[in-house]
């Protein structure tokens, strides 16, 4: 039997791991005026999926595969450094590690997981997500989908608080880009083997800049 239901658990926005406090750069992008209506929001989400989403998905998928190895820690350590090198924004590195730590706290609070308990203190979020998917019997493709799903639903849900848009439109945008998430998840899967140095590194320079600008704001709704 193939595990499926656990995927819904990890992809659920209500997963109590603190993700709701983040907008994935949308708050500052709205402030700059680059995102201002349903169309530009969809473009933002699509761009995020193809860049950050693809990278996170590839790392989650590979971590999921690694979690089934007898000793996954050395590979997870390499993946952690590779993801650092793909995240030029210190604010984004910090956010990713904070979210990773929160997910880790949740998972170790839910059950005893010998592998997770041996992870360093604040691993990047997709590594924890991928490893968790592996531990709950999910496949690398599932981990990739969960990472991609999360990379766009967080900002989409945040959008209703940040701009004048109703939740029907945000979810219509999510539904329209769903097929591209499937394609990106398949692409992410191609990197479960081979040199980790060749893994996807799709850059989003404007997201990097807005992450740093956002970190300097004294008034903000979302932490990132």
């Amino acid at each position, binding site marked *: 039997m193939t595990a499926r239901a656990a995927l819904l658990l990890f992809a659920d926005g209500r997963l109590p791991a603190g993700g*709701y*406090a983040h907008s994935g750069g949308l708050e500052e992008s709205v402030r700059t005026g680059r995102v201002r209506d349903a169309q530009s929001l969809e473009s933002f989400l699509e761009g995020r999926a193809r860049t950050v989403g693809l990278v996170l998905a590839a790392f989650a998928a590979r971590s999921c595969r690694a979690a089934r190895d007898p000793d996954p820690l050395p590979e997870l350590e390499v993946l952690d450094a590779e993801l650092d090198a793909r995240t030029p924004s210190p604010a984004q590195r910090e956010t990713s590690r904070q979210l990773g730590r929160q997910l880790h706290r949740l998972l170790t609070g839910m059950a005893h997981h010998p592998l997770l308990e041996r992870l360093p203190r604040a691993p990047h979020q997709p590594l924890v997500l991928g490893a968790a998917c592996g531990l709950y019997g999910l496949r690398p493709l599932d981990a990739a989908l969960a990472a991609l799903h999360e990379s766009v639903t967080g900002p989409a849900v945040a959008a209703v608080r940040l701009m004048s848009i109703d939740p029907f439109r945000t979810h219509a945008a999510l539904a329209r880009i769903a097929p591209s998430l499937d394609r990106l998840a398949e692409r992410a899967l191609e990197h479960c083997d081979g040199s980790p140095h060749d893994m996807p590194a799709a850059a989003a320079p404007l997201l990097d800049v807005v992450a740093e600008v956002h970190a300097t704001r004294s008034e903000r709704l979302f932490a990132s």
Partner: protein
Amino acid sequence: MPRRALRLGVAGPVGTGKSSLIATVCRNMAAELEIGVVTNDIYTDEDARFLRASGVLSAARIRAVETGACPHTAIRDDITMNLIAVEDMERDVGPLDLVLVESGGDNLTATFSPGLVDAQVFVLDVAGGGDVVRKGGPGIARADLLAVNKVDLAPYVDVDVDRMVAEGAAARGGAPVLALSRHRPETVDELCAWIRRLAGDHAAGRHTPTDPGAPAHHHHAHVRAT
């Protein structure tokens, strides 16, 4: 089990004086208890800044959690960020006796998760009107302590404090209600005594947390939908 601090939640609507109550506790009890504070803000770290500016605790003992404009979620549904903040602080500056967790000002229905705090105070103020107590809600009805704050202002806002306290006590089946004003030392002493007793019980392993979010079986609260 390793000794850890008593974790005390402070909830209540916006502007009722949660930060000020916490500053008062710190000012009056810092000599006898090792205290830390975690704030939950709607916009960044304003409450944490208020406490830092008040100078009652060192900056390392005040941490802010950003809640993505969802303060009630951070203290009840998804407590991970708060739990990490509390645990980090106990690890970094501990051992502590008391960690106060301040909720972001929200509505009357917000209460702390039993996974986050051992006990909680719900704060109202007289300026919100005498009838707030009658409107009820889980925090008013079942928090460990209901504080009716700013009672020194009662004459100016036309509220009968005694009546408000009596109605609160009735709504709470006799559980404690405290009329409080930081300008009236005897009320502050009462608050500190309550916390002292609770911290003592916690340290001695005598304190059994009760969750105001869960339906009460031991008394009939006059709770109406809000």
